Structure formats: structure tokens, C-alpha cells
């Protein structure tokens, strides 16, 4: 048996100013060379557990920690965070926030520089890691100019430069497309096998790692409910969501086909980059459209064009009216959009005011009742008077959706709605989409979760390098025909 690297005994933790415990009675031993996936619902305590394993609790994040946390046999309280960081490295969910240096080479060197490692050794480490991760060509690049996958690679490289024995990744697949996920899996497997490095993944989709993992841990309400070295409790995503998907697929589209959006030859330029190229498409009323493609293909830009939020060449007609003649804040009543980052779309001080924000702007007086129902359906009713910023990530996403759904726009645009969402949250989103289809409202969804999107969308639209590569009716739609 390999040595124990981290040991948690009867650990309880509660954040400052929060009455309930986020983690309860955690007993856990992490061994060298393990490949662990920690899964569970949103707000179940995964990220908090990672913060304890990486030493940020109790050293940086305030709260009450009870029980014993040992790093290589030494109490976490007795160690400096800089000492723990040489044992455990944490790659956060959003690599964008993790990169602090102007260039990739600076970023990788940052940790070893802080540890006063000599330059020759730092250069050796940079060369070794950049070769291993196949990112030599990125070394001189500005960190502001990297794609999502490249940012994550840089974040991993910057942690590996510290030579940790344990690497923790929080939702590593969240912002990655399928080829980037495959590449990440290859890198992690290689680190685990060749360096006997312990890999800990916090994921809502443990099935992605089923070929590599040696142990799975499931958290619920702050406690470990399953800890197993076999993978019996890993299920396929589509199986878990089967019921919701079937319900969605049983719904038929409108009897008469109406083009609600006519997109004609759209081009978008940003500085010297040609982001969208000659996009033409007709969107039919009452159907679900899934937009797929690799990182940087132009999917999110396309959604922003449809909401009239960025300038473009070409024309888009909504019920025959050119979108260019409608100011975006007025168009929003008909075409609503939910962005990726929940924090960017919270404007009010309480949850209920947040849901009523758009209806007030549109001068809809009867929105209170719908807002109450939506909060109930989103299980946010108890947080009615809470600050939206006090909610968990998953709860914020549900709030974002409720804040747009409250006025039922004719077309709803969802940008990566499934990122960082537990299956319960995904079920909620699918339920909302189903209700929209029942009312013959159109929904357009951008997501990297191709199989999930394919399972319930009526039409799929594939983007590649700014071009609309193809669009096609999904299997269930074909069967319906």
C-alpha cells in the first residue's frame, strides 16, 4: 500500500456567518498514486473539501474547522500554506481567475520563483513541463490571449512547476470541448502513471474519468455517502436524465412551421479577427436548437448577435422586422439571454428583486405571482430576501434562468447552461425548456455537452472556425416527421 499523503479525521467545517455546517464528519485518507473522482450535487461540499485538502482552509478561508487534518502526518495548522502547496496543488474551476502573470512563461515560473528555487532549476522545470503538456509554442504568449483549453493547460503547468505530489482539479471539464477534454485525460493519466502523482478530480460527470480512476467519492449535504474503489455508482449522464429527456422528446413541435428568426449572411469582426463568417439560418418557432462546436468556433458570439448585443454585418429579421431597428434593451423582452458567468447578471440586492428586475424594466405589473412560482420551482423560495451573491454557483444559475423566464421571452438563448451543474440542476433546466416547448416558445442552447444536447434538441447547428458548418434535424425530430 502506498503512503498516506493527506488524512482527515472527524472533520467538520462551517463558513463564517453561516449557521449550518458545509462539511460534516469527514473521514478520509488520500494515498499516493490514487486517481480519485469526488462527485455529488452542487453545494454538497466538494469545493470546500478541496480547499481543506489543499490547505486553504484554515489558512486563507475563514470559518470554523473541527477535527484533524494531516498533511504527510503533520497537522495542517502547523504548516505554512507555502509548505502545503509543495505537496498539494489546486487548479480552480475557472482558470481565467487563476492566471496572474502577463505571459505563460511567467505564470509557470511564478511558483518556483516564490520558493526561491534557482534559475537553472526553474528553466529545467519549465522545459520539462511545457514539453510534457505540449505547450512549448505557448510560452511567450500573453495569458490574456489564450483559449479556454490553453488557459487550463497553463494553470495546470503552473501548479506542476511546484512539483506537488497531489494534483486537485475543480470541474476541469467545465469550459472544455470534447477534444480538449480528451487531451486533458491523457495528460492526467500520464502524470498518474509515470510520476505516481495522486490525481483528485471534483466533477459532476465522473463517467468522463472511468478509464483512469481508482476510487470514487460521493458527497451529499456535506457528508461522504459513498467511498468506493470500484466504479459501481458511476452512471451514464443520459441514463440519469432519461426521464426528463423522454418527456421532452414526447412533445411535438407546432403543427405549422413558422420562421421566427431569419438570419442572412452575418459577419462579425473583432479588431483584426473575423469571428463569424457568412452565417445564414432560419429558426423555426417553438423548437429547441442546440448549437455545438469547438472552443472559439463563434457559438457564444452567435448568441450575442441574436440578442443584438454586438455589432455585425448582415441582417436578422425577427417576425419580419430587422433587428437593427430595435434597441437591444427593448428586444430583450422578446429575445432573452442567460450568459455563462452568473455574477455578471446579478443586479439587485435580494433574490426576489433580482427576479423582478427585468419585469420592472419592461413595466410588467403582474410579475409578482410568476416570480413566486418560479422561485418555488427553482427551490429558491427560502432565499427570497437573501443577497443573490450569497447563493451557491448552481443556485445563482437557477436564479439567472428564473430572472429571464419570469417574462417568458419568445426566444430564450442559453449560453453553456450545464456548466458546473449537478444532475438535479440539469433536470430543472430541462424542465424549464420542456415548459417553453409546451407553450411553443423557441429555445436556443449553446453547449459543449454534445450528447446531452443531441438527446433533446430538435435541430443541431454545428459551428467551425466561425462558419456554420451544417445544421440538421435531430433523430427524434426525424422520427416525428
Amino acid at each position, binding site marked *: 500500500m502506498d503512503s498516506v499523503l493527506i488524512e482527515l479525521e472527524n472533520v467538520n467545517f462551517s463558513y463564517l456567518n453561516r449557521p449550518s455546517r458545509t462539511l460534516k464528519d469527514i473521514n478520509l485518507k488520500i494515498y499516493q498514486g490514487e486517481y480519485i473522482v469526488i462527485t455529488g450535487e452542487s453545494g454538497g461540499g466538494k469545493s470546500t473539501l478541496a480547499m481543506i485538502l*489543499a490547505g486553504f482552509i484554515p489558512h486563507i478561508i475563514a470559518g470554523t474547522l473541527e477535527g484533524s487534518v494531516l498533511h504527510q502526518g503533520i497537522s495542517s495548522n502547523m504548516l505554512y500554506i507555502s509548505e502545503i502547496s509543495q505537496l498539494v496543488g489546486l487548479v480552480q474551476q475557472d482558470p481565467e481567475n487563476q492566471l496572474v502573470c502577463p505571459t505563460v512563461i511567467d505564470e509557470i515560473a511564478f511558483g518556483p520563483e516564490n520558493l526561491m528555487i534557482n534559475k537553472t532549476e526553474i528553466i529545467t522545470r519549465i522545459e520539462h513541463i511545457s514539453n510534457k503538456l505540449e505547450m512549448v509554442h505557448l510560452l511567450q504568449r500573453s495569458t490574456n490571449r489564450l483559449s479556454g483549453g490553453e488557459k487550463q493547460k497553463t494553470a495546470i503547468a503552473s501548479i506542476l512547476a*511546484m512539483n506537488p505530489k497531489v494534483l486537485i482539479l475543480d470541474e476541469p471539464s467545465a469550459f472544455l470541448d470534447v477534444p480538449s477534454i480528451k487531451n486533458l485525460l491523457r495528460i492526467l493519466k500520464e502524470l498518474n502513471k509515470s510520476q505516481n502523482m495522486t490525481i483528485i478530480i471534483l466533477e459532476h460527470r465522473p463517467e468522463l474519468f472511468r478509464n483512469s480512476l481508482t476510487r470514487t467519492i460521493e458527497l451529499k449535504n456535506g457528508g461522504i455517502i459513498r467511498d468506493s474503489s470500484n466504479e459501481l455508482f458511476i452512471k451514464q449522464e443520459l441514463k440519469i436524465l432519461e426521464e426528463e429527456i423522454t418527456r421532452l422528446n414526447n412533445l411535438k413541435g407546432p403543427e405549422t412551421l413558422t420562421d421566427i428568426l431569419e438570419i442572412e449572411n452575418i459577419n462579425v469582426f473583432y479588431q483584426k479577427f473575423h469571428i463569424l463568417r457568412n452565417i445564414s439560418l432560419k429558426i423555426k418557432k417553438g423548437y429547441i436548437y442546440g448549437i455545438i462546436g469547438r472552443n472559439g468556433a463563434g457559438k457564444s458570439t452567435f448568441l450575442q448577435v441574436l440578442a443584438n448585443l454586438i455589432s455585425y454585418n448582415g441582417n436578422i429579421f425577427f417576425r419580419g422586422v430587422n433587428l437593427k431597428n430595435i434597441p437591444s434593451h427593448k428586444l430583450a423582452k422578446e429575445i432573452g439571454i442567460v450568459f455563462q458567468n452568473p455574477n455578471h*447578471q446579478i443586479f439587485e440586492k435580494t433574490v426576489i428583486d433580482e427576479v423582478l428586475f427585468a419585469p420592472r424594466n419592461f413595466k410588467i405589473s403582474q410579475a409578482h405571482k410568476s416570480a413566486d412560482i418560479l422561485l418555488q420551482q427553482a427551490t429558491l423560495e427560502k432565499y427570497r430576501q437573501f443577497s443573490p451573491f450569497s447563493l451557491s454557483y448552481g443556485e445563482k444559475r437557477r436564479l439567472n434562468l428564473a430572472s429571464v423566464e419570469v417574462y417568458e421571452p419568445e426566444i430564450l438563448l442559453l449560453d453553456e447552461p450545464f456548466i458546473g451543474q449537478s444532475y438535479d440542476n440539469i433536470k430543472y433546466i430541462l424542465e424549464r425548456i420542456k415548459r417553453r416547448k409546451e407553450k411553443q416558445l423557441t429555445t436556443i442552447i449553446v453547449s459543449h455537452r454534445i450528447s446531452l444536447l443531441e438527446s433533446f434538441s430538435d435541430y443541431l447547428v454545428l459551428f467551425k472556425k466561425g462558419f456554420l458548418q451544417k445544421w440538421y434535424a435531430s433523430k427524434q425530430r426525424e422520427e416525428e416527421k
Partner: protein
Amino acid sequence: MSLVIDEDSKVVVRETNPLVKFLFVILLSVLLFNLYNLVKVYSMLILVLAYYKVGKFPYNVAKPRIRMMTIFCIFILIVQVLFVHEGEFLFYLIPAIGFFGPFIPIYETGLFIGLLIIGRFIGIIAISWVFINSTNPFSFARSLIKLKIPYRIAYTMSLSLRFAPVFTIETNIIQKAQNARGLNTNPNTFLGLVNLLRYTLIPLIGSTLERIKDITISMEGRGFGCYSERTYLFETHFYLKDLLKLSIGTLLIWIFWII
């Protein structure tokens, strides 16, 4: 920026020392605030903008702010012109037409102060943008450390430079999200401007706090601040050419001051 690795593994970045640029920003700002000659103030502004052109410095980095700056400048000018009734009387904004008028007298001092404040305001912004957008934040930190400023303070200062573009991008996204929820944020209208100011703060603070937490974890998790010293893979040197640039620049600023 070219990367040179010496025989003894010293990595050196060859670019104008950021400290020289920073000193220029300070000198030019001091000069601007001490100029009371409108011709000189606006000549200096034209010279800075000419540098944008000659140095192929992108105008579009300041583009999102131009509209906001214009509104602010017009507001300042109106306040000064309407409420400062000192100096020589110049003209009435609304002249006498028959028995109607004249209204709103314009005085020399009000107009002068209004134009002076605008010139200084735009000048400072234009100079600062050159510094922010042409300086590697970590080179700036390294050059501050050479002045014996503790590296924790120097890096904190440089981080604000690093995240300046991110902050701009985020503000832009928030504005889009506001529009997408039916809020009029058109800064050309009074209501739009008020909405923009009122509803940008909350999401910006929210995302900034989140970012600060992540950055702290990222830096502390990589041993930042654990020792009083640290290694520097790259070194920012003060070359003879930097001294020459500083001398010539200071001389030009002095000449501009005395003429």
C-alpha cells in the same frame, strides 16, 4: 520583447525600463497640472495623440471610454461656463432677439477653467493609457523591486495593471447583461447613464470579490510571500539607453515648460 538566455542561465528582457515610462507619466502629469496656458495644454495633448499614431498605439483601447469621457467633459464645461461669472464678459449664449433675452452670460474665466480642466483630464487619461497598455506588469514590479520596494507591494501594484484589460472586458459583459434584461444603458441619454452607473456597481463588485478570492488562492497556493526574497527568472535592467531616454525626455519636458 525578446527573450535572451545567457550562458549562466540569466534571462533578460530587453525593453524600455518601465520605471522610465512611469517617471515620464509622473513628469507629464505634473507638467499638465502646472500649465495654465490653454495652447500649451492642448499642444501637449496633440503631441500625446501623435505619439499614439507614430508608435502605432491602438486608439481602440480607449474607444469604449471615449463616449463616457465626452459626456463628462461636456458636463464639466457646462458647469464651469454657467456658474463661474468671473473675468471679462465675453458674450451671451442666447442673444437678445427683440424683447426676448439676452440670457446666460459667458465669462472668460468660466470658459478658461472649463477648457483647462478638460485638457488636463483627457491628457492624464491619454498618458496613463500609453503606460498601462505598453508595460509588462511584472517588468514594472521587477523595476520597482530594484528600488528596494518590497516585492509584495510591487507585485500588488503590478496586478492592477495586469487586470486592467480584464476589468474593461468584464464591464462590457455586464453592460450587455443589463441590456439583455431590458435596462436602457445608452450613455447618450441621461436615464441610460444613470442606469449604467447604478446597476454596474453590484455585479462588478460581485465578480471582483470572486476574482480576488481566486487570485489570493492562486498566489498563496504557489508560495507567494512565504519568503522575504524571491528568485526572478527575468531581470529588468536599467540600461544606458534608458538613462538617455530619461534625460532627453526630461529636457524636452523642461523646454516645453519654460517656452
